[in-house]
């Protein structure tokens, strides 16, 4: 039964923080500092590594992702994606079946170009061996894919199937994280994000047994990126 | 900027004073050879044992004494990275919030130097005239390395010692396990650390181990000897000053010294 004067945990913690800082929380200058920083989101130190022309940026993206045990191939246009997916599955003796998201960029791919490929649409329930997603962006700085959750790109496709194929537009490869963050803000608005943003750099791995690095811990064993078009 | 003819207050350090004065004499010689006047005011200790044991009051009292005794010199030089670190880096911290003493501590701190760094960085000494034929290896004491950036200077001067070759040991910059009171409060952990260090020293095949801090040197010498490893241990100042007639640390007296 609550006493009227009893402080909630929230009140207790805030009071304790404010006492420690010597403030009451109503000070206008402090509030302005905080509001300004959130609104202004200054960038800090941005590595220059990815600040290079588009072709070199693409090459850096490939190099970094391959260094993290991902595989990358380039195709000229979306028309070649089904063939590339088929070749990937055959290369690893996998059944010619993929689960993909409903993303428009994947829907507009001519899947019939690879007629023997079974394509189903939706999230994964753990029974699929291979999935195909479309990336929101790539970051050349570290070879990272930025995947945004949505009905068109269910998160489970990124984690449950053993083999994850990601289609990435060459023109969506950014030099650094700050640019990708700005892109997220453009799409989702200030202070807003989709339910989850997965930044993925290679296939799943663990080094927990005697520091020996092994791929395929809980997430996909293979990550294959198909870069489409010119940067 | 060559600073010659300067008056140096030599802070010998309590370990050198008690256990190995030859290091003090070697330091004095190096400084005098480089054109300084060396003075040794009455001193006891820099206060680290009290400081690292949490006794700030005693540490402050000692610091005031030291500053009083030494602040009149142009420079304060010690053959020890950890003592110099205490004087230069930590003394000012002790007087935080005390406007009078803090200013004195800051001024004092600016004059404090580790010996080899003083020779190379301030006096611009480029070579020594010593002979020390043989293979040596060098241990970087933690305070000298991390608080004072002493690393290249001893190697530079050792490179000019005639007949001397330097073989770097694995993990030269890793702690030897001395840590002041640590080695007696946690002797088994300290032993584990110094055992690794002794193995690395022995693996170089060097006949002599050098460093710039007597505490580290005593610790490593003590372990090497307990393990029966035939490595002489000396302070780098002794070699640079060409004053190696004394037995190495923990070494037996020679017949003619009795």
């Amino acid at each position, binding site marked *: 039964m609550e006493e009227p004067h009893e402080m909630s945990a929230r009140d207790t913690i805030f009071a304790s923080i404010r006492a420690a800082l010597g403030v009451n929380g109503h000070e206008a200058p402090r509030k302005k500092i905080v509001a300004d*920083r959130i609104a202004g989101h200054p960038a800090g130190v941005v590595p220059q590594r990815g600040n290079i022309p588009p072709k070199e940026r693409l090459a850096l993206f490939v190099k970094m992702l391959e260094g993290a045990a991902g595989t990358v191939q380039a195709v000229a246009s979306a028309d070649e994606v089904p063939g590339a997916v088929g070749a990937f599955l055959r290369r690893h003796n996998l059944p010619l079946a993929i689960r993909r998201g409903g993303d428009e960029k994947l829907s507009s791919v001519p899947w019939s170009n690879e007629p023997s490929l079974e394509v189903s649409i939706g999230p994964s329930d753990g029974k699929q061996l291979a999935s195909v997603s479309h990336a929101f962006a790539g970051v050349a700085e570290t070879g990272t894919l930025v995947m945004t959750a949505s009905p068109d790109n269910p998160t489970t496709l990124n984690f449950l199937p053993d083999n994850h194929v990601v289609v990435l537009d060459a023109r969506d490869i950014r030099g650094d994280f700050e640019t990708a963050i700005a892109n997220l803000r453009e799409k989702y608005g200030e202070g807003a994000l989709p339910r*989850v943003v997965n930044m993925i750099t290679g296939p799943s791995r*663990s080094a927990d047994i005697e520091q020996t690095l092994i791929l395929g*811990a*809980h997430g996909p064993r293979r990550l294959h990126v198909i870069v489409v078009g010119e940067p | 900027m060559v600073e010659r003819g300067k008056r140096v207050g030599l802070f010998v350090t309590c370990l050198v004073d008690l256990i190995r004065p030859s290091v003090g004499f070697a330091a004095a010689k190096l400084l005098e050879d480089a054109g300084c006047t060396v003075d040794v005011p009455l001193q006891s200790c820099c206060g680290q044992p*009290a*400081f690292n*044991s949490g*006794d700030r009051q005693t540490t402050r009292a000692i610091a005031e004494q030291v500053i009083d005794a030494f602040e009149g010199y142009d420079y304060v030089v010690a053959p020890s990275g950890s003592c110099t670190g205490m004087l230069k880096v930590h003394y000012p911290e002790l007087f935080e919030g005390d406007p009078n003493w803090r200013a004195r501590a800051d001024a004092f701190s600016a004059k404090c130097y580790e010996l080899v760094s003083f020779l190379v960085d301030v006096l611009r000494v480029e070579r020594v005239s010593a002979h020390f034929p043989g293979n040596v290896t060098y241990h970087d004491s933690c305070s000298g390395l991390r608080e004072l950036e002493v690393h290249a200077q001893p190697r530079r001067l050792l490179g000019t010692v005639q007949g001397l070759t330097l073989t770097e040991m694995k993990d030269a910059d890793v702690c030897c396990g001395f840590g002041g009171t640590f080695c007696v409060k946690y002797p*088994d952990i300290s032993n584990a650390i110094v055992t690794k260090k002794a193995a690395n020293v022995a693996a170089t095949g060097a006949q002599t181990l050098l460093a710039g801090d007597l505490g580290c040197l005593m610790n490593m010498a003590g372990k090497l000897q307990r393990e029966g490893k035939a490595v002489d241990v000396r302070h780098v100042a002794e070699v640079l000053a060409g004053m190696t007639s004394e037995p190495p640390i923990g070494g037996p007296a020679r017949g003619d010294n009795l």
Partner: protein
Amino acid sequence: MTGASTSPQFKDNARKALADVNLQTALKVVEVNFIARRQEVADRLPEFEALRDSARDIKNHTLAHLDLYLDAYEQRVTAQGGKVHYAVDADEACRIALEICRKLDARTVTKGKSMIGEEIGINAFLEANGITPVETDLGEYIIQIRNELPSHIIAPAVHLTKAQVEADFRRVHTHLPADRNMVEPETMLAEARAVLREKFLAADVGITGANFLIAETGSSIIVTNEGNGDLTQTLPKAHIVLASIEKLVPTLEDSAQMLRVLARSATGQEMSVYTTISTGPRRMQDLDGPGEYHVIILDNGRSAMLGGQFREMLRCIRCGACMNHCPVYHAVGGHAYGWVYPGPMGAVLTPSLIGLDKAGNLPNASTFCGRCEEVCPVRIPLPKLMRHWREREFERHLSPATVRAGLRFWSFFARRPRLYSFVTEIAARALTFFGHSRGRFGWLPLAGGWTKHREFPSPQGRTFQSQWKNRTR
């Protein structure tokens, strides 16, 4: 409740650790791998040092405005359909988590690695209340089946050899053939993956920690290499985030600054495989994701640290670089520290959280070599903070009586240089008398701590100062 500690038995723990052959073998790997990899990846990034400064500054700024950022964060989380709960201490955090689980009739809970989870003892608490928690990070899973605390904040099972893990898997995975071949680590990983995949899919609630909380968007970030954190939070009905108050950073850009130094400092990677930013429960149109998103914000002593000498410790981002470089950690491993947080960061944080009377050994068991501070991505002056603990101990008369007496004895002379010189001259002559021909002592009265493992050198007859006085000029 906050898990019990064996920190008061640090010396005993250390002695056992030094004699533990398996542990010593495993620790060699820490010394070699983590240090080299961090150096390589730092060398590859010209902006690394500047990023460390930036990370430190972001944390300092956030801490100075923590109440306001926390408030902004809570508002954003709520706006996205998530719920923020506050817990003053470990007990409260556990009760809140249990209530969330009970409301959903949860039977099993999967867990991503969470040091806060260890700190509050959530696993034992859930078990005691009839709910089965399953650790999904491979290292945490291994120690869970061994009923141990993690020995390292990034690599919880780093103290074990492959042979030990194999033995544990055989003992626990009884549904598999007893004589199966497990020579290769790959087979062990595959086995763990299969066992845990079933748990992921069956879990009712997923609990993770958070590497950072972002005020701007009301998000939590987790960083893994395995993907277990993602499966933990995506598949069940509810996702519970356990986070302490100092996990906050203001904006997405600030999180990018922090992430760049975190992965490099922790594992020598440019970026961890999975860095996931979660914001609220599944949206109406989402096809997957948790139906509920809860964040339990824990204080447990941290707000008290904000106003005092140990405030800088709140910058810690739990990368583990300090323990990877610590000669004491290399000698005794993480369990010797006796609680959740080992190594230098544990030595500073543990007394704040469980009390100096219990954890006093930890900040004392350091040589102050300074390597930890040298590599800390947010530049925490760890040796200085450890020294502050020693000062507290001294003031409160917590150090052993013999140590205090010895110090008092020494101080009496050190403060009187003339007397000191007199006494040391006598000591020099006396020791030399006994020691000079052999040059050293195998044993000295009162110096047992030294001579147990080392020889002690003989002095050189007289003190330097007395010889200097007689020097002819």
